[in-house]
């Protein structure tokens, strides 16, 4: 495996699990190539990792390392060029409600109110309108958006829109939450608040989360484990367990261990980036 062991950090647990304990998600030798201007771009190469049920997995990497592509493949929106992807032992074929996807932009339907946006997946699922609305209200309360049911997405701030998108995604009752830099477009303060709230929601939920970010502190603060990706070709260069206590909150951010993790990951990324840090491998989307 691609995990590097660095004291005082230990390598990921997933690969050490006994075979009897099947991982919820198994990504094996995944590869993705695009052809662009007659050139073949390796967006992902030989990416392998397991995700045990209930883990909060952060995937950290520079832009263009293929981390979004990886998430899109897990979500079933894009297809891998090689390798396999097993969800509870079964190969993934297309998108499904078991994997709830959240994007960098809130991607709410601008023509629907917040309530209708959150209720829509329930209606797709065959629920009655009134019932769907009731569920939407509960979910909006969960993310702290009560009172904004009748607002349109354009009337809300970026943070509130992401809350609504989170409510909509939770409404799918997914087993795995796939989050593609969902706080990347928010201002620093809102982003911190959203991180704390996501932690709180997740700690009560038992959900498995795969969280893509290029922000080291975000990856560490949220994750049980951090996969670091390098670009050109996109691949995993480190697999590290984060040994910060739970529940996590404002005090976690002041923990001296945070700084240790930060400099450790920063070193990894710096080495990886090298002199041509900004040439895009061509797969990260926003």
């Amino acid at each position: 495996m691609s995990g590097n062991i660095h004291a005082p950090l230990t390598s990921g647990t997933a690969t050490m699990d006994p075979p009897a304990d099947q991982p919820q998600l198994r990504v094996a030798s995944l590869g993705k190539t695009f052809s662009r201007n007659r050139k073949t771009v390796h967006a992902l190469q030989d990416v392998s990792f397991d995700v045990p049920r209930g883990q909060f997995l952060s995937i950290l990497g520079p832009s263009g390392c293929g981390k979004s592509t990886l998430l899109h493949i897990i979500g079933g929106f894009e297809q891998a060029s090689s390798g396999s992807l097993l969800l509870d032992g079964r190969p993934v074929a297309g998108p499904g409600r078991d994997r709830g996807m959240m994007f960098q932009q809130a991607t709410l339907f601008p023509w629907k109110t917040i309530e209708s946006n959150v209720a829509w997946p329930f209606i797709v699922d065959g629920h009655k309108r009134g019932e769907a609305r009731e569920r939407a209200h509960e979910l909006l309360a969960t993310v702290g958006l009560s009172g904004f049911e009748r607002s349109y997405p354009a009337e809300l701030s970026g943070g509130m829109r992401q809350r609504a998108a989170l409510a909509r995604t939770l409404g799918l009752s997914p087993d795995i939450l796939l989050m593609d830099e969902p706080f990347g477009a928010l201002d620093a303060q809102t982003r911190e608040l959203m991180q704390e709230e996501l932690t709180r929601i997740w700690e009560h939920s038992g959900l498995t989360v795969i969280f893509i970010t290029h922000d080291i502190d975000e990856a560490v603060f949220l994750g049980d484990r951090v996969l670091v990706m390098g670009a050109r070709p996109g691949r995993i260069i480190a697999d590290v367990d984060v040994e910060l206590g739970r529940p996590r909150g404002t005090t976690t951010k002041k923990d001296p261990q945070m700084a240790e993790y930060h400099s450790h990951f920063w070193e990894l990324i710096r080495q990886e980036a090298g002199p041509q840090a900004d040439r895009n491998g061509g797969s990260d989307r926003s």
Partner: protein
Amino acid sequence: MTGTALHQPQAVEHRQARQGVAASEWMLERRWPVALAGAVTLLALWQLYGSTVGLPEYILTPVEIARSAAELTASGRLVELASASLRRLVFGFTIGTATGVLLGLLSGVSRKLGDLLDGPVSLTYPIPKITFLPIIAIWLGFSDPARIIVIAAACFFPAYLNAHAATRSVDQSLVWVAMNAGAGKLRTLMQVVLPAALPRTVAGIRQALALAFIFMFATEAIGSGTGTDAGLGGEMFAARTTGEYEVLWAALATVALLGGTVDATFRWLVGKLMIGQELEAGRG
């Protein structure tokens, strides 16, 4: 899933949201009076110049135009002229725009149909549509059907091109959201792709509406008779030759008034129907 209620969003977020609403209220309350004031000022200056300095005999002042329009309306002539014109406009606009929007949406969704239509559309788009009139007139004469076909042809292009581009440029992730929820192809098309494509499609329809007025006038200018069936355009050209400038100006004012009213109604309707997207575009 979780049952814990979370902290309320921060005050900052609330304030930002409220500012958005306040801005849209401000625009609703203050924008149209400003637009009206601009028009009234222009008319007043025109009137003032006409009654103090004086204008050539072929340019009438707003008051004279209004008087002439009132007389012509009372005699029923203006109403007959306008209804002849509007009949052509409505048929031409409806046929051209409906065909354009339908084909545009379909060719946006289906790559095959898009490729198939791309050739004919690229070939015919640059042709000034008014040049169709003499050709069509060979079969149909300078008749209503001939004029309606030309108006429809003119309306087709902005409707088609915008509807096509609108469906092509629908945000991929909106479609993914629908797929994630397990929505089928038809539901995704009807409930996600079409609404997402609506703003640009409607912008195309509005362009078509403006063209419908232009082509209504242009088609009437060529080969019209002298009766009320000439329409507003035909009547204006006839009035020019006979020197009935008050009729000319009354017809012009009627076209302007009709066009302005139709466009304002259209925009109001759009604001009602697409409130969420209008807010997003900052036009709420």
